[in-house]
């Protein structure tokens, strides 16, 4: 036990003395959190729109006004030339072209139904669907207004109300920040442990440690303990920044979150340890870590929902520890989930921790023997 503490103390001193590592561990995560949370958004707002109005009537102007006043669309240009609209779409200046055909008002009055056309730049998949639904909603609301104005108000047959639970303002940051916290903790834990042991290898100091009476388990514990603590500190810092800067909700128990993080960090550190056993140099350690993390983070549902992934990827991603911790972090912070709600992902993480640590330690011993 005393040996572990001594070695752990040496590690802590290493980290504290090396400015580069300390900056990497404490400042970079905060910066990343600040930039990522602002950059990583699929939010749809102020869709630039071009209007091609052939009718130029009261009804068509009314419709355009409703679009402009909705706060969702910004009319950046209008003319009666479809070519100009098409060009704006091709050049990428606008995302949607609203075309109102001639005789729009007359058709509307005479037959009660008049067409309009929406051309949406669908390069950006799901954003296009959202733009479309906003536009359709505005058109039908305006139709309702016109119906009322004709003196025969018709009550809607079905009165639809919408509740957005857990995030009433649809703030994208409340979605991203709990996930980004996980990414930060993962990167720090895995990268630092992989790099640290690879450096000892490179410098040859690992050989020296091997001839001391210290056992493999003691060595691994002492190596990983400081980074485990550092990971928890990073999570705390990230959480504080998230609450103060981004006003993210903390609806569940913070203790529960840290409990899960404690287990999860063991997995992340074990992966780092495993990487350090298969590489020779720090450069390779960094490269391999980056490669592995890249796959893990992209498949975790952090940026895009797991449900949208191809079915086989969803199955494969069950073997991705990051996915489970992202789910836990979001459930606890945003939805206020309790122990019973997150039991499944939590025990999955416990399983991962046991298996990865055992594998990494075994691999480590083998490489040195």
């Amino acid at each position, binding site marked *: 036990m005393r040996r572990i503490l001594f070695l752990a103390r040496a590690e802590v001193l290493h980290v504290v003395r090396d400015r580069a590592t300390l900056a990497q561990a404490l400042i970079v995560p905060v910066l990343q959190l600040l*930039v990522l949370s602002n950059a990583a958004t699929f939010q749809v707002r102020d869709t630039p729109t071009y209007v091609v109005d052939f009718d130029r009537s009261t009804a068509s102007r009314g419709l355009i006004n409703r679009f402009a006043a909705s706060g969702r669309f910004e009319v950046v240009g209008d003319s009666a030339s479809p070519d100009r609209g098409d060009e704006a779409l091709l050049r990428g200046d606008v995302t949607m072209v609203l075309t109102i055909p001639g005789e729009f008002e007359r058709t*509307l009055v005479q037959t009660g139904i*008049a067409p309009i056309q929406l051309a949406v730049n*669908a*390069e950006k998949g*799901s954003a296009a669907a959202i733009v479309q639904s906003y536009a359709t909603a505005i058109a039908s609301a305006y139709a309702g207004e016109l119906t009322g104005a004709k003196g025969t108000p018709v009550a809607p047959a079905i*009165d639809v109300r919408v509740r957005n*639970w857990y995030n009433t303002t649809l703030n994208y940051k409340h979605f991203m920040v709990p996930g980004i916290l996980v990414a930060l903790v993962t990167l720090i834990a895995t990268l630092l442990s992989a790099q640290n042991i690879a450096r000892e290898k490179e410098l040859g100091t690992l050989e020296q440690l091997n001839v001391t009476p210290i056992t493999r388990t003691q060595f691994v514990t002492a190596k990983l303990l400081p980074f485990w603590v550092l990971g928890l500190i990073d999570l705390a810092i990230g959480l504080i920044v998230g609450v103060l800067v981004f006003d993210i909700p903390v609806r569940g128990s913070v203790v529960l979150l840290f409990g899960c993080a404690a287990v999860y960090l063991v997995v992340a550190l074990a992966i780092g340890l495993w990487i350090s056993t298969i590489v020779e140099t720090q450069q390779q350690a960094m490269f391999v870590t980056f490669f592995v993390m890249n796959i893990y983070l992209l498949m975790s549902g952090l940026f895009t929902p797991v*449900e949208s992934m191809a079915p086989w990827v969803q199955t494969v991603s069950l073997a991705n520890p990051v996915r489970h911790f992202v789910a836990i972090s979001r459930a606890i912070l945003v939805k206020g989930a309790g122990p019973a709600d997150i039991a499944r992902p939590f025990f999955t993480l416990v399983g991962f921790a046991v298996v990865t640590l055992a594998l990494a330690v075994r691999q480590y011993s083998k490489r040195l023997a």
Partner: protein
Amino acid sequence: MKALAGLLRKEFFHILRDRRTLVVIIALPIVQVILFGYAIRTDVDHVRIAVVDPSPDAETLAFRARLDAANVFHIVAVLPRIEALEPLFKRGSIQGAVALDPQFAERLGRGEPAQLMIVADASEPNTGSLVQAYVSAMVGGYEQELRRRGRTVTIAPSVRMRFNPTRASSNLFVPGLMAFVLTIVSSLMTAISLTREKETGTMEALLVSPLLPWQIIAGKVAPYLLVGFISVVSVVLEARLVFNVPLRGSLTLLLVEGLLFILVSLSLGILISARTSSQRVAMMGALVGTLLPTMLLSGFIFPIESMPLALRLASTVVPARWFVLVARSVMLKGTGLVYLWPSTLVLFAMAALLLAASTRSFHARLDG
């Protein structure tokens, strides 16, 4: 010239002999394209929902059948009370819910507005909006069927999804992916390879050789130019063959723009290596200076229009932003230089500027 050929040969051997790095170089584009094609998607289908139906009868059953038939929803639970939703949301088993009023059928029959509530798990805001949009659209259709008799005014929008009618995410991500892969291969690799020569001291040996400075840079850069070009071709091939991403514009234009972007990335790599002394610092510099901006600020994954003004401004100095724009326009929209000359010009200017700066800082180091 013979000396240059010798250096080139040596560099190629370097790349070919380092097996681990070679595997990463070759595997990276392939793995990334697969990841982005299959895993990074934002399409929402098969939304898991629950229906709260306190008093099931023929009318509500018909409504539920319609929900089910929409093919967008997958009803995982039918509950009697709205309170029962909470644990399902917390466990993440449902993404949304449709709650019907206890007097739904009764009110409909009496011609009064029947109440219906859409509950969306907005902790993922986009899925939240989509659930809401889908249910509203479905209800709208149902409503119109219910009151064919009443004389109302309807505006019937016809929607055309331009450039990507199926709204497949792979069409969006794969062209952008080229920028990402090229940044890794060009900037990261060059920065590290040049710093390694410095660290191991072999750079000094090159300097006292009869090679001119530009020849050293050319010799170092040419192999990576080739590797980068191969990556572009392999990404385009994979995109076409595996994911059926359209290539509506000119292939030649795409490849030429690709080369231009590789040149920019390589110059960035040289610049970073000239300013740093150890591989570790070079790696961090390349990561922070090129890779993260390419991933976050290029519009490759996250739309630039959604970002705050400060980040939108910052994105204009990221070379990848311009290349992503070009790659997407050429592949999806089939646009030519008529529309793309501004971005091309920006890339040209960046290449010229960075190349000049990197050759200069390389010189400065040689003299000092």
